[in-house]
């Protein structure tokens, strides 16, 4: 018998290396666990909570839970699917996620997860945020009301581009994404359109100023294929070598 370390997701064996999280091992094994704030080239974060799994009756985020040998993990249960859908619904209700008026519709990972998890609507009262947008940068635009606070951009800038570009400020309902400059303007940071961080936003918050409609609505990434098959990929993402 092999002495490979393994745990189980919905009875399926998943091999892992010591130090890997459940998500990292699952991703390496080609098993999709829905997520937004996880990226395999960046440190785990655990803020979106969409990757919740059940272990011994309690709910954990797969992206921050270390893999241990022979762990029994439940992922595709109807209860978890419902809660994941509710989390997606909360994110929709929280921000300005009005798909028909958004440039990334069809390429958006939040929207793709909504499709995949069977969301048609949400019952929550929309929160209608009202944050200051930032159009200062020549190549990039920040539509603040669409931020889901996943901090992929923050981490990508630090860990892949080695630049201090983004940060999260405030708290609770008043949490906001900001540019690390006295002016709080993106133009005054070192980010360029070629940086990893400029191509990692999973929603329509950090947008390129050019080329948004080159591929028409209806023919985009998640129009063609559901996210559980396609994975969390932007059509323009950069090579993820850190």
């Amino acid at each position, binding site marked *: 018998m092999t002495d490979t370390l393994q745990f189980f997701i919905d009875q399926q064996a998943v091999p892992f290396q010591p130090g890997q999280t459940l998500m990292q091992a699952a991703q390496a094994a080609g098993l999709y666990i829905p997520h937004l704030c996880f990226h395999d080239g960046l440190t785990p974060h655990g803020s979106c909570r969409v990757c919740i799994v059940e272990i011994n009756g309690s709910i954990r985020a797969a992206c921050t839970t270390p893999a241990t040998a022979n762990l029994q993990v439940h992922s595709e249960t109807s209860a978890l699917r419902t809660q994941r859908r509710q989390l997606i619904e*909360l994110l929709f209700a929280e921000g300005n996620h009005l798909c028909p008026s958004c440039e990334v519709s069809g390429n958006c990972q939040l929207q793709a997860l909504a499709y995949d998890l069977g969301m048609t609507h949400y019952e929550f009262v929309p929160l209608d945020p009202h944050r200051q947008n930032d159009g200062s940068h020549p190549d990039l635009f920040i539509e603040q009301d669409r931020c889901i606070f996943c901090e992929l951009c923050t981490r990508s800038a630090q860990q892949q581009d080695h630049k201090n570009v983004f940060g999260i400020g*405030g708290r609770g309902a008043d949490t906001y994404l900001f540019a690390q400059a006295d002016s709080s303007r993106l133009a005054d940071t070192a980010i360029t359109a070629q940086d990893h961080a400029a191509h990692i936003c999973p929603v329509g918050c950090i947008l390129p100023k050019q080329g948004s409609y080159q591929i028409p609505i209806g023919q985009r990434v998640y129009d063609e294929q559901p996210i559980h098959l396609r994975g969390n990929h932007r059509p323009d993402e950069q090579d993820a070598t850190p």
Partner: protein
Amino acid sequence: MTSSSTASASGLPRLFSRSAPLPQWDAAAAQALLQARFGRLWQRQDLLQALIVIQHHFGAITAPAQTWLARHCQSNTADVRALIHFYHFLQEERSTPHQILFSSNIIEEQQGMRTLFDELRMGTHGLAEVGLTSCIGLSDQGPAALVNGHPLTRLSGQRIREIQRQLQQQIPLAQWPQNWFRVDDNIQTAGRLLQFQPDPALFLSQLLAQAPQQVIDRVQQSGLRGLGGAGFPTGRKWQACAEAPGADRYVICNADEGEPGTFKDRVLLQHNLDAVLCGMRMCGHAVSARHGILYLRGEYLFLFDAINTRLQQWREQQWLNADFNIEIQLGAGAYVCGEETALLESIEGRRGIPRIKPPFPVRNGLFQLPTVVNNVETFAAAAWLLQSGVDAFRAVGTEQSPGTRLHSVAGDCEKPGIYELPMGASVQDLLQACAARNPALVQLGGPSGVMSSPADWQQPLAFEGISPGGSVMVFDASRAHFNIARNFTAFFQQESCGFCTPCRAGTQVLLRDMDCAAQGQQHADLNALATLINSTSHCGLGQTAGRPVLHWLQMNAAKKTEVAHD
């Protein structure tokens, strides 16, 4: 020194006196204040502490102050503002010399706080900033408020009118009547812990005669469990920290007593400070740590100078020295910082966002070094058990929860205050002791604890029974459960750090949908939403934020069943 910091008897500058804020930003004055605060060159990790000093002395951290601070620690002002915006007591602008924040605890709300708040707000016409803040730990002598960080207790309509007169006549805060600021201990039942006034010299000689492992063994044998609420075995925590690899270690006293309705740690810090310091010193010896930090919640700023003075006396006596020293770090209005890893982030000068666990602080704590974080009462109890012995410690309480427990009691009762009872005493015992008036509901352990009804009141208050959370709020039959649940939900919404989806977005939506439900409008499934928040949130705050709504729904459902059966 600057005019705003007067020297105390011990020769230490009084950093947080009641002097009015300086009207103008003055970099030289700020430099002197920060020198007094740190006594060394400060850096980015000290930024929060620096902001607190600046806030207190200038009333706000204005743009030039932000620039000055950012330049000093090689950062940018957006980064400084990001921090300011996290902590409720830090602000960028100040319109008036006086700022008065009313404690929005449900107990004080039920004592008429809203009327007083409205009266003061209407009557001051731009003479003071008037606002609300989460519980300030004075619900046994409320309604209470903070004026420029200093507590005003026992507020009444009469007092509000007097305050208005002070404001109208522009009388400096330092000259307001002293008795308005009186904070009583209100000790109703003093057990062995509240009577414990150790002689530090004797305690230290007894402590240092024992090997660190011996001390840990005693704590393990005593069965002492963390009295911040979670009840983790203290000895096991100390053992794990002692065994964790690290060039250095930290002992942190969590005095961020933010759970609404809780004020026992305030009383311990005022009344039994040496016991707490002995406990910290003991832990430092046990785990071979050289640094102790007492993280004091911003609401207890008025205790800072007294504690600092006492620490100085300990240093002068060599009870604190190069082997082990203790310093105070202040919070600035953020309940979440009571969560131990958020507290570490705050001490490191960042927003109080709870870390991913594991790793736990005993291995990767402050600055990634092994760290023990214990509650104020836990340290005092540890010191007691070292001095009195394991058998004496276990002689009181239950098998699984030995020792005594301090309960902060407030609400509809004749004798609010502190009750020290053996672990395992029942809610009924407490209700009798405090002369509760027609009690119908009792909240145990604050909003994150449990709402109990008469059927639960014979149960023991112990870790194996019903939550011995340190706070007991008594509600008589006239109090509407919805209003209590709404107040608690609003509290969680305001105190959510904003890191994870369910807590950040969920608490906002939950509050709105509760209001829709109360007004008979369409609303989401509150039960499903509250359950989602509890089961999927990142930290303990979120994992309990749905409880008040669930308790309210459950008790409502039970009542309906009762009616149906009648």
